[in-house]
């Protein structure tokens, strides 16, 4: 961990993300993707973000991943503003892992090499990178596919490689953009099982975008979005119901 990124060594109850009046505009304000979003996510939570296409889910995930900056409002990661990070790549390299809907494996590299990609910024030796990648691929049940190129893998296998890759940097937060969107139900179930196990066994914070209500149902909390706003937050509903 460098001084530019906040520490991830924190108790499970700690707030990981805290968003206040988060807005994001495109095309000089013609498109308002986020119109003032407020929420907080605790360490170890499994949050599903749902909503119709164009509601701002992906924009929100991009902001959480420091891929883009919000137009206004604030987003704190473990108490530090993501917008003020001097080097967002440091945060992406060490704090979070990305899982994409289309897997986004690099076609000219083997599964073992794909998983090593995020490790280049970690300062590890080539053999350390290789050993860790092999270990991660074994943990997702692909120990026998180390030297295969992505084109030779099924959709489910590709997404499992992508999950192994997202864990390569030893992150504590996983950001997943419709990870089962391109999979059949059997593979989708297997991938979700893997993600849920990571959440429960390793206490990873998991933020997942999905259209699938069934998958959203496996999350400990659901944020429903519409027109750039959070329409409902199951955590709040539960709290209100309890009170």
């Amino acid at each position, binding site marked *: 961990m460098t001084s530019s990124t906040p520490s991830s060594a924190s108790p499970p109850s700690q707030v990981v993300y805290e968003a206040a009046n988060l807005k994001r505009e495109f095309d000089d304000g013609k498109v308002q993707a986020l119109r003032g979003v407020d929420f907080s996510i605790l360490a170890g939570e499994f949050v599903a973000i749902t909503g119709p296409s164009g509601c701002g889910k992906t924009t929100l995930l991009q902001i959480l991943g420091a*891929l883009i900056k919000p137009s206004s409002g604030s987003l704190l990661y473990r108490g530090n503003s993501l917008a003020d990070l001097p080097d967002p*790549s440091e945060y*992406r390299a060490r704090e979070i892992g990305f899982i994409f809907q289309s897997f*986004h494996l*690099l076609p*000219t590299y083997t599964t073992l090499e794909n998983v090593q*990609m995020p490790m280049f910024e970690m300062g590890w030796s080539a053999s350390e990178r290789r050993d860790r990648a092999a270990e991660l691929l074994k943990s997702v049940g692909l120990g026998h596919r180390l030297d295969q190129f992505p084109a030779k893998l099924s959709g489910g296998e590709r997404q499992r490689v992508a999950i192994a*890759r997202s864990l390569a940097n030893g992150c504590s937060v996983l950001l997943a*953009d419709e990870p089962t969107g391109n999979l059949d139900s059997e593979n989708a179930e297997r991938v979700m099982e893997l993600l849920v196990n990571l959440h429960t066994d390793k206490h990873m914070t998991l933020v997942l975008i999905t259209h699938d209500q069934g998958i959203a149902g496996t999350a400990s909390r659901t944020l429903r979005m519409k027109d750039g706003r959070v329409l409902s937050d199951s955590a709040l509903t539960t709290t209100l119901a309890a009170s």
Partner: protein
Amino acid sequence: MTFLTVVARGLIRRPVRTGLTLLGISIGIAAVVALVGISRGFESSWASGMKARGTDVVVSNLSSALTPKPFEDKVRERITPLPHVAATCTILVDLMGIESSSMMFVSAREWGGFSWENLKLTAGRMPKDAMEPVVILGRTAAEVLSKKIGDPIQIETRELTVAGIIDGGAIVEDGSVILSLPLLQEITGNQGKINIIDVRVTPGTTEAEVKTLCQEINKVVPEGKAMPAGDNIGNSQAYKFIRAMSWGTSLLAVLVGVLGVMNTMLMTVFERTQEICILLALGWKRSRIVRLILWESALLGFSGGVVGVIIGGIGVKLLEHTPAIRGLLEADLSPQLMLMSVLISLVVGVISGLYPAWRSSRLPPGQALHG
């Protein structure tokens, strides 16, 4: 997997395009090797020819042509009394079409002069006197003209006979037709004219004294310019022009290579936009992306340089053996030239990658979540 593996894989994934770009830059570098090698070779061939003739100082007027401008042979009388001058030998050199060869050195030497001394006969004999209608051929010239002892040889309107074949000890000598000075003066209508005076200095003369002698000669012989034998050709206007042309043509070829590499690397960046965005999303720093593109273009440049040196070297060797060129030059394919060519190519690769690398560093990582 190391970072270099990632770099190499980036190039290997598009073998045809990488191959064609390599070819483009290789041709540019081959041009550098060939043209600069030939022009340097011409200089060193000339210098070794002087050495083979036993010359220390050359007096000539190499102003604007490949062969020196003629002047009166009486000029020699002003040189012989100068200090450190041991001997002089007047020469008339020309580049002439001889029978099947379109261009060949014809070197006519003062009968009895010292420049005949180092010619080693491999067959036949030397001329019997100054006006005997015979020539001596360098061994390469004999091969190019397919002549043997006793064969007739046509020089301008005169038919002479091949009396001997020599090993001249230098490419210029080996590729020359050698005859006595009065004979060529008569054939070409240049009676009393020469274009070179070879000067041999007394034993023990220092380099500084040779330079002083050159200055002395320059004072008394305004018709020509005296120079230490090794410097002579390098200072001629014609040679300077050839050298400039060689570099100019080479640089143009290299520029084409630069554009080729730049185009390829830009295409690479455009095609790999999503891949680069994914790498950024996975935490790669922009500086690493810049390094990736620069390393790829540098590797392309380096490989192109190595291939170019090989193509250039082979090309020059083939050229040296073509009948039109054979015996006229020996390209200087020194390790220094090869190394310099590869270095140029490497620099070209890096320079060509700068703009694409900058473009790649501007890509928004958020694009990774689209598509």
